[in-house]
């Protein structure tokens, strides 16, 4: 899993690339939460375009980031969510907490 981050004008963008499972979940949480603590962003965009596979570990990752951002009064937006990852997130009901931008083909 490749994790790339960029902070600009109050917005932290995180690009995830690879398969999101339990094996990489901890690494993502640590990396992103460290960035959040450092930049104190107003919003956090998670770009899922490069995520070809995701299981329930992804739900916990997004929840953790959501909780940290909520403590700071910020928002989480999920971008470029693929059809399969969407199916997993829909079951979890997490879509009631975080914003999801339309899937781009």
């Amino acid at each position, binding site marked *: 899993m490749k994790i790339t981050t960029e902070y600009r004008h109050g917005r932290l963008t995180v690009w995830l690339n690879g398969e999101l499972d*339990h*094996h990489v979940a901890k690494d993502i949480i640590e990396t992103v939460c460290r960035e959040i603590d450092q930049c104190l962003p107003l919003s956090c965009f998670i770009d899922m375009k490069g995520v070809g*596979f995701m299981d329930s570990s992804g739900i*916990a990752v997004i929840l953790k980031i959501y909780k940290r951002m909520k403590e700071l009064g910020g928002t989480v937006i999920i971008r470029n969510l693929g059809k399969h990852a969407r199916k997993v997130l829909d*079951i979890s009901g997490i879509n009631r907490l975080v914003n999801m931008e339309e899937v781009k083909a």
Partner: protein
Amino acid sequence: MITVNYINIEIPSKSTNEGLARSAAACFAAQLDPTLEELNDIKTAVSEAVTNSIVHAYPETIGKISIKGKIFDDNTLEITVRDWGRGISDVKQAMQPMYTTGGDERSGMGFTIMESFMDKLRVKSTEGKGTTVTMRRRLSYRAGNIR
């Protein structure tokens, strides 16, 4: 039902093997000419079961996990994931959505995902002895599907 093919895999409960286990299951399932969506559903369900064995069955140690695949003559795939770990005292409770003993590292949605992505899910567990998860999914017949 007649078994037309099978595969048996044994792995140690290391998280690096999660990707390997679901990919192996997907390769095996590929013989049934599944759609991309079916394949993703199977991969996800296998990932959930194997991750459970790694995370919950052997929390402190490395133990053995067995993954068995079977293909039946009616286009059904069966996957069995077995461990000899801690076991589950109350399976019914464990299968409730959002029930987890894994703290905020986990979401408690694994069994719910297995249940909704597969046609059948059976969980047998004995505390201190281990857990066996069996899942079945009947794949669609598609035009040009020759086996």
